[in-house]
């Protein structure tokens, strides 16, 4: 299949983008998972990354976060080229991601899951542990307070001392998002944050994503539920067969419905028009 030029398909990176990628390719064995994806995520936006199953969304997220290296192409954060950086260094720059299948740190408590994510941790250096215990204690105290209020905000406070592995699926989702928030992201990649979550919780997570935007965080989220996308996202990137099919404002995409539907079939069918 060759993707048509929808007019909106980007070739250049806009200046006020928080994150962008250019001509990303990735194959697994012979199969091309990503085949020239190019897009940018506007600063301060909530951008949706949509497309059919197997379109390469998760692979793109993995490449953006550095969990996976691409075969070719570049990843930029603002105007910094981060293509060569390992994932932990990208995270330190403020690029934090969640996973499609929750990746709770099961042998830690819920509270510890958040504490691990704290950005400033002098106690991770053993030198400080032995020689500057006061400094370590002070930083821990500040992180505890932050973790406590995030847990409260996400309704996990009462579960703080449970093993993370013992949480329900929905609770694990909330834990994963709150842990990402604890890491003080400037840019948040969410891979299907609402998958397998009940409708009430979907609204709640949507609310949290809005709060993050209000706090200045740029969000890129993979989402299949177009109702949710319409409600909370302002920008959309459509990925199909590893290629960027269209990008733009949600309203622009709606005008392109016919074309998009033709290429995405069942995924968008009957939902965009709602």
């Amino acid at each position, binding site marked *: 299949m060759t993707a048509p030029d929808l007019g909106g398909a980007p070739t250049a990176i806009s200046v006020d983008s928080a994150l962008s990628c250019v001509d990303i390719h990735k194959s697994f064995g012979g199969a091309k998972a990503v085949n020239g994806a190019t897009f940018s995520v506007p600063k301060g936006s909530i951008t949706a990354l949509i497309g059919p199953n197997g379109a390469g969304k998760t692979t793109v997220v993995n490449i953006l*976060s550095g*969990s996976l290296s691409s075969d070719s192409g570049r990843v930029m954060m603002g105007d910094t080229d981060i293509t060569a950086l*390992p*994932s*932990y*260094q990208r*995270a*330190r720059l403020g690029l*934090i*991601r969640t*996973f499609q299948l929750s*990746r*709770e*740190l*099961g*042998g*830690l*408590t819920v*509270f*510890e*899951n958040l*504490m*691990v*994510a704290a*950005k400033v*941790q*002098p*106690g*991770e*250096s*053993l030198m400080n*542990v*032995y020689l500057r215990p006061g400094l*370590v204690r002070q930083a*821990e105290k500040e992180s*505890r307070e932050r973790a*406590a209020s995030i847990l*409260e905000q996400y309704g996990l*406070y*009462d579960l*703080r*001392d449970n*093993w993370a592995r013992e949480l329900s699926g929905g609770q694990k989702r909330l834990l994963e998002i709150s*842990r990402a928030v604890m*890491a003080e992201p400037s840019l948040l990649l969410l891979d299907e944050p609402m998958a397998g979550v009940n409708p009430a919780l979907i609204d709640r997570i949507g609310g949290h994503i809005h709060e993050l935007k209000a706090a200045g965080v740029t969000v890129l989220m993979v989402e299949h539920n177009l109702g949710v996308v319409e409600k909370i996202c302002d920008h959309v990137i459509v990925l199909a067969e590893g290629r960027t099919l269209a990008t733009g404002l949600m309203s622009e995409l709606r005008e392109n419905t016919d074309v998009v539907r033709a290429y995405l079939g069942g995924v968008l069918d009957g939902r965009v028009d709602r």
Partner: protein
Amino acid sequence: MSPLVYYLFTLAFFVFAYCILGWGLNLQFGHGGILNFAYIGFVAIGAYVTGALSLGKPSGGQSYIFGFSLPFPVGLILGGLAACVFALLVSVLTFRRLRTDYLAMVLISLSLVLYDFINNFVPLFGGADGLTNVPEPFADALGLDTNTFVPFFAGVSLLVALLMWWVMSRITNSPFGRTLRASRDDDEATAALGKNVFKFRLISMLIGSFYAGVGGGLIVEFAGAFNTSAWLPGETFLIFAAVIVGGVGNNKGMILGALIVPVLFTQLPKFIPDIPGHPGLILNIAAMAIGVLLMLVLWFRPQGVIPEKKRLSKLPPLSERHRSTGAISAQLTTEETL
């Protein structure tokens, strides 16, 4: 001294030594998730280096390197550091490239290679004969004889063990330990939070190997001799069994593991007289019993006899939390009025 008391002090020594070995492996495996199947190799390096540094110049057909007659704590510390250096080489070569399961295979082969090398390369540590007549620390200075040295050195080992317990508990209770356990549970997710997982694993490998080396050093100074029959690569599983029985990631449980597994199953049987006509049968039965015990624990209590303890947040209940922070309670009342 009665043989029984002598024997109890000997057992006590081995409990302390195995605690140290167990804490080291627990840091690597229990907290760090590194399946170090070459652990006994690091113990051996510590033992050989400590022994060869404490011995004088080789004489009477013996051959080994060093021979510096170093006094007690110095040889021991250098033995620990030697194990560290070896760990650094191994980690730098393997950690970045290998997943933990492949790493385990590489390490197990490495311990076999190391074993054959030391066994056959006589100039290094005396080959199969190993080191003998390693001086007993302080024995000359304090005028200790065979009877008094054993309780004395058991006491010394207790002090060393207490010190190493303190050092280890600081590590495992620190944010360093927490991040290390996070990387054990999910290295990719931990890296995605900005943690250099390689660094945490490397440090846990180095410190754990130091413990292995010091444990080995204590054993050679206690026994006065060390050779390849003392560290068959299978012994690694003995220490693993002790960690798993005592509880993964649990330093206190380790004491129980050190008591039950190595002492009960390998040291104790050495003192039981052989069954006439079946030399070595008792030891083989003990080895089988360890295997059975390991399987039973994995089956019935996979978290170990004393499971990893939950590190509680010690945060107040939600209601109290609100009472203490005025701003939030004010916000709550406005919400209630709405």
